[in-house]
């Protein structure tokens, strides 16, 4: 129980200052995020993260694009001073790729090299008779490795729905209660269970897009489920405040007008693709700092409200039909 009680995520960057990063001298120290991740969690999300840590279950985040699913994992790792490993899933991903990779081709190459260099006294960079030289740990493998040293790691499995149907099921066998897998190529057995029989489970955060929803039920059952809503007006302002490089310089009137206008624009049901938080921040940056000689920045806040065209629509709208109403009338 002590390992689970040690960590508590508050979504407060200031807490991470208490962690003396220089004191982390272990090999995994370099994997601890060094730069802060400004993050404003949705209501209940911080608790869900803590619940996931408490129960040792993966946390599955669903929600529309751009509401901050991916960034959470890094924010957790930063605040708690834990190593962070990301695994970005793509359409051809296999479950094994997140555990380890084995470079059989390089080994084959080295065997040939040794044959040719027989008799000469050239030294080879690797010994092909040792398969472990060609095995590299990937995100989950690294996390298990860190677990062996008694430390939890944060693993992000991003956009799991992109992969093939079998992918979550294959992953399930690894993420089951035992948290272990074997490497057939080297005969190694990797487990989060330590020599003293305690299991240090990595904190696993999985993201998925809402629309598809084709994850298998047994997989879903093993995960904690959280649906991330898009931030509301107050939360957006908080996000802006957290992301501001210099809070003193921020133009409050402009930020307030921009947030209101953005939320209003997102309610437009005709939008084919709704802009996300990061696009909003880009837009806000453009409003604050971008402009030519005839219209120096910042953009006047009083021109934002209303039904007029949005300035800099190219930062927000990425589908032609969404973009056009704003683009045409600026001319």
């Amino acid at each position: 129980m002590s390992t689970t009680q040690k960590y508590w995520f508050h979504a407060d960057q200031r807490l991470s200052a208490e962690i003396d990063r220089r004191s982390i001298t272990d090999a995994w120290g370099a994997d601890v995020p060094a730069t802060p991740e400004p993050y404003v969690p949705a209501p209940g999300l911080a608790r869900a993260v803590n619940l996931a840590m408490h129960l040792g279950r993966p946390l599955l985040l669903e929600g529309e694009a751009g509401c901050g699913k991916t960034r959470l994992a890094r924010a957790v790792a930063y605040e708690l001073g834990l190593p962070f490993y990301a695994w970005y899933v793509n359409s051809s991903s296999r479950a094994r790729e997140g555990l380890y990779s084995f470079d059989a081709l390089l080994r084959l190459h080295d065997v040939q090299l040794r044959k040719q260099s027989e008799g000469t006294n050239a030294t080879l960079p690797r010994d092909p008779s040792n398969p472990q030289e060609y095995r590299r740990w990937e995100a989950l493998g690294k996390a298990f490795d860190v677990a062996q040293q008694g430390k939890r790691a944060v693993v992000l499995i991003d956009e799991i729905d992109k992969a093939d149907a079998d992918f979550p099921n294959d992953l399930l066998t690894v993420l089951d209660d035992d948290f272990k897998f074997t490497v057939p190529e080297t005969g190694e057995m990797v487990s989060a269970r330590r020599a003293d029989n305690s299991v240090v489970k990595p904190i696993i955060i999985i993201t998925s897009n809402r629309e598809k929803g084709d994850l298998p039920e047994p997989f879903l059952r093993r995960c904690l489920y959280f649906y991330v809503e898009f931030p509301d007006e107050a939360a957006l302002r908080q996000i802006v405040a957290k992301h501001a490089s210099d809070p003193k310089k921020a133009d409050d009137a402009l930020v307030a007008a921009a947030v209101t206008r953005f939320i209003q624009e997102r309610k437009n049901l005709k939008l084919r693709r709704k802009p996300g938080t990061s696009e909003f921040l880009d837009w806000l940056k453009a409003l604050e700092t971008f402009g030519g000689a005839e219209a120096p920045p910042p953009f006047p806040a009083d021109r934002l409200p209303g039904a007029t065209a949005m300035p800099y629509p190219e930062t927000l709208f990425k589908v032609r039909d969404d973009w056009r109403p704003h683009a045409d009338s600026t001319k």
Partner: protein
Amino acid sequence: MSVTVEPEFLIRVFLKLRQRGVQLGVSDLLAALRLLDGDWPFEDLAELRQDAQRLWCYAWEHKHLLEEVWREEQPSQPATPPPPVEKQPATFKSDSGLRPQEAKATPSPQPSETPVAKPDETIVSTLPVRAPTLSGGRAELSIRWPLTTRAMAYGWQSLRRLRPDGPLTEIDFDATLGRIARDGHFTAPVYRRALRHHARLLLLIDRRGSMTPFHSLTNDLLTTARQAPEIELVEARYFHDVVTETLYADPLLNDPLTLDEALAGCGPETSLLVISDAGAARGRLDSDRILATAEMIATVRRRSALLAWLNPMPPYRWLRNSAQVIQHLAPMFPLDQNGLTDAVKAVRGHHSSKPQAGALQASTR
């Protein structure tokens, strides 16, 4: 922690959730009971309910279910009555008589007793023809279809047909080693082609009339099929009641196509699904409908034998009407989770568990 919760309470909620179709295992119950150990802080029952939601509800639809069950099982306490606006939509559900006994047993205010607000009545009386409005409260919009969109997406997955005709990107180690053994030295690795999805699906969807209540369901089916990465190409053709000479390219039945045009993209490996009640909704035995359907099935089978029928009406309603006959012309499955799985199995090109017409078996080989 300011409240103590009996483990029995969580067990009761757990069992009820399972009864209502949420697939949960013993380990999920044990995980929830661990929250009561004393290590996990929660202020009140509502906070614990949220935690249980994260743990047990893995689909959007389950959220409401847990809230409902939680309310039923919750030990009586002088809780502040929830705002009536929130409650109004619940009236719709509880009216259907789902909870006959609990309604009386729990002292918490039951929504079914709350009368419709007065202002609404006056509005209704001034307008002679008007459907009851939900605008006063937050409408209960959770989907209660016989199958969820998640189940649909999962159903489509087994339609996959993989063929190695992608780019030459995968290293074939066996072949590489074979070549080394043959040549005596390593020259270059042997590559093989990546697998790609090649399933094609044509949906023939009955619209309007008796199918009107299922429009949204068939739309969901089409959308999930289009999103499924396993299916290379999804086409939809629409008709009303019976496929005659014309089908339509659009769901509003405005853009007519001849049968040949509609089936132009349909080859021997295209999977075909007809979604229609086959007369089961109205319950008539219509010989014209049966004949026309038989003709359509024969025409379609000439192009592809991978044909199945999805009927949104439950099987007991197929008796003594056109559907009873039509189910012998084409394998017919109810449009629920198992039915969709079976139908997909039938059109995937493998044999289904039920024996099919001879023509089908011959050409699937």
